């Protein structure tokens, strides 16, 4: 075997945009193909209203999926995001209806998500219980809390300021889309630019090596689950605003879409691999697919079947691609 002695500066292009396109070529082509098919088969798809509608719908899933990407990168999983979303949503609406001003109510909602995430993180870091089981349990528990707070009924929101968050525009851009744009930047910066981001990849890549390298892996785990909880609560607050109500049943099975988006986007289930940019494309694919199937008047039941098949196919293609590279 010959080893190249000369040090190439880097085998990647120095242009981040080109790298992004190269790394996500498969899913981007998929997304483009899907868009093309839908623009030919339906008249409505390309209408600006519809496109904004898709983006607005994608926002909730994208927000959850970014948190999920973080958790998957450190080799964990969080099944409780849908429940946290519901709990934060109903809490904020109830506080508003009792007369609390918008900003403090939202702050408490986000804090609630942080506390739930912190609890997940503490249990996982200090008890060695598998994250799947821990968050399955908290998923049930937190869902129960939402039912208890609301006695199982949805709570209508009459606060115009709050309702504007999910439905309003800043210029031509829907506010939730703007928020997701900010989250994309923040999350990418955390993952790529900070020490914390590198330590996340290290923890998920090889937890033993991370420990030996002097990384406080427990601290990393606790923070990441807390961040995931915060993102889930933000998703819940925006969703509640968009629906003009806090619903204790909201976000049921949303963890599935969030995991699907992350995995479609190239995040590894074994930890150590994943990007926010990839997850974004994954979330867009799921959003476009949902919207397109609605436009094509496919029944909801068949939509689930088709989504399942698409996810399997996409992940399998990804695995084939990686095999080829080896």
């Amino acid at each position, binding site marked *: 075997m010959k080893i190249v002695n000369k040090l190439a500066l880097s085998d990647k292009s120095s242009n981040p945009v080109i790298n992004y396109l190269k790394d996500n070529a498969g899913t981007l082509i998929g997304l483009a193909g899907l868009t093309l098919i839908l623009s030919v088969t339906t008249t409505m798809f390309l209408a600006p209203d519809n496109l904004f509608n898709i983006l607005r719908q994608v926002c909730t899933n994208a927000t959850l999926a970014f948190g999920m990407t973080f958790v998957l990168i450190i080799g964990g999983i969080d099944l409780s995001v849908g429940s946290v979303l519901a709990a934060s949503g109903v809490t904020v609406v109830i506080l508003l209806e009792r007369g609390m001003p918008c900003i403090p109510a939202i702050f408490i909602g986000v804090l609630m998500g942080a506390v739930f995430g912190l609890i997940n993180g503490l249990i996982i870091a200090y008890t060695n219980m598998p994250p799947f089981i821990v968050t399955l349990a908290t998923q049930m528990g937190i869902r129960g809390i939402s039912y208890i707070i609301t006695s199982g009924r949805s709570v209508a929101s009459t606060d115009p300021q709050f309702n504007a968050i999910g439905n309003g525009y800043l210029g031509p851009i829907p506010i939730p889309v703007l928020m997701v744009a900010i989250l994309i930047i923040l999350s990418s910066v955390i993952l790529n630019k900070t*020490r914390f981001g590198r330590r996340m990849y290290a923890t998920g*890549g090889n937890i*033993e*090596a*991370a420990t030996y*390298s*002097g990384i406080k892996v427990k601290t990393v785990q606790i923070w990441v689950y807390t961040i995931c909880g915060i993102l889930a609560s933000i998703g819940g607050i925006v969703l509640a605003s968009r629906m003009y109500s806090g619903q204790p049943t909201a976000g049921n099975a949303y963890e599935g879409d969030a995991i699907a988006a992350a995995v479609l986007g190239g995040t590894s289930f074994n930890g150590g691999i994943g990007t926010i940019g990839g997850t974004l494309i994954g979330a867009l694919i799921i959003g476009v697919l949902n919207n397109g199937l609605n436009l094509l008047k496919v029944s909801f039941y068949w939509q689930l079947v088709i989504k399942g098949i698409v996810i399997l196919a996409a992940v399998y293609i990804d695995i084939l691609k990686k095999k080829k590279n080896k």
Partner: protein
Amino acid sequence: MMDEYILQMENINKAFPGVRVLHDVSFSVKQGEVHALMGENGAGKSTLMKILGGIYSMDSGKIKVNGEGAAISCVADAQRYGISLIHQEICLANNLSIAENIFMGREITGTVKGFLNFKAMVSEAQKILDSLNMKIDARTRVGKLSIAQQQMVEICRALSTNARIIVMDEPTASLSNKEIENLFLQIQKLKAANVAIIYISHRMDEIFKIADTITVLRDGERVGSMTTQELSPDTLIKMMVGRGLKEVFQKVKLNIGEDLLKVEGFNNQYLKNVHLNLKKGEILGISGLVGAGRTELARAIFGIDPLDSGKIFIDGKEVKIKCPQDAIQHGIALVPESRKEDGLFLNQTVSFNTTISILEKFIRFIHTDHKKENEILDNYINTFSIKMSSRNQLALELSGGNQQKIVISKWLATEPKILILDEPTRGIDVGAKAEIYQMMYQIAQYGVSIILISSELPEIINLSSRVAVMHEGELVKIIDMETEEISQEKIMYYAAGGWNNENSK
């Protein structure tokens, strides 16, 4: 006579995208011989054996078993021709019994197809175990066995397929001396039963003890085949790497200073009242049998395993070390024993791996100083001539020796005063070993004190200025080369607990 060869591999060629791994390699094995396959990592040994075992396909070439052409395209094909591979890593299911492991994939079924005949499997398995003098019940769960016993189960599995050719890839890597003796005994028995054994190992002494014939590969080509009598260790090394034994251990004079680290009365579940001192700039060897507490001592110093009692002094001042972060802050670094499991982030780049412990030096909030990161990295790449295609190459693509250099560099980057190396040359070839030894001298000359834990006595004797010997969690003897003579026998005497008898006299 052609038919005395049980296996002939002729003009085998194999290339992976961009690299030619095997170039016209021919390799023949006689019935009932132990044939050692030698060469540095990357020489093509494993690839050749994987082609034989049906794991890889060859690009061109011919394989003959018993003089007849054999078409091997999958593992089942290889088994049909009586070829069985025992991999370096043990591939057994810990949750199943010995019998179930032996017959995994070839379970014996009863009168009703699809239902297991557990009784028949157990009795068959027991027969094989008995034939190898293994006094274990075939119903024992594999997870309860020692590594050596698990290795034997692998051999039993090979035998149960009626293997006529058994390939053993570094079978002794995780065995103690006694277990190795036992393995060799079994190999003699297999030989007597006319089974051919292809034996891959990096340990010279083993090869000369057990092999009848030695074939050496270098850079994907066959250098030659000779009987063991014709070869001396020195010629063998020259064939493998193109340089002699003297050049492997090039003694360098070290400037040894005052005590830097002092360990007093370390006690925990693995250690019994361990006292140790380490001088500035010295290489202190720690020897002992597997399980004597060497790794555990390192883990205790580094703050991974908690102490029941004990004090640690650095530069004469007592320090508290409760976790690896504390140890790093006090200038201690630990290169763990298994670089793949505890040392490396295999899916990450060389750059990521080298700098993960010193992110503070070049990442401030969200600003990454890539120039500084590259400077740090290039410094180590050049000083230790680490071979890679780019800074962004993944760690898993590097050879074992270069991987180890990366792990050591990662720790040097923290600018430690004390470097603990646990089995730094395990599983790497002679050429890379020599480079790691050079690297250690370079580090020690720079004033860093090194604790070297190693099972290879030549390594301990040739590199260390003092040797500490451990036995069952106790540090029983420190041999100072300045004032005392040292030999492998002397170390083994203390390691095996000989001092106990001395005390009772």
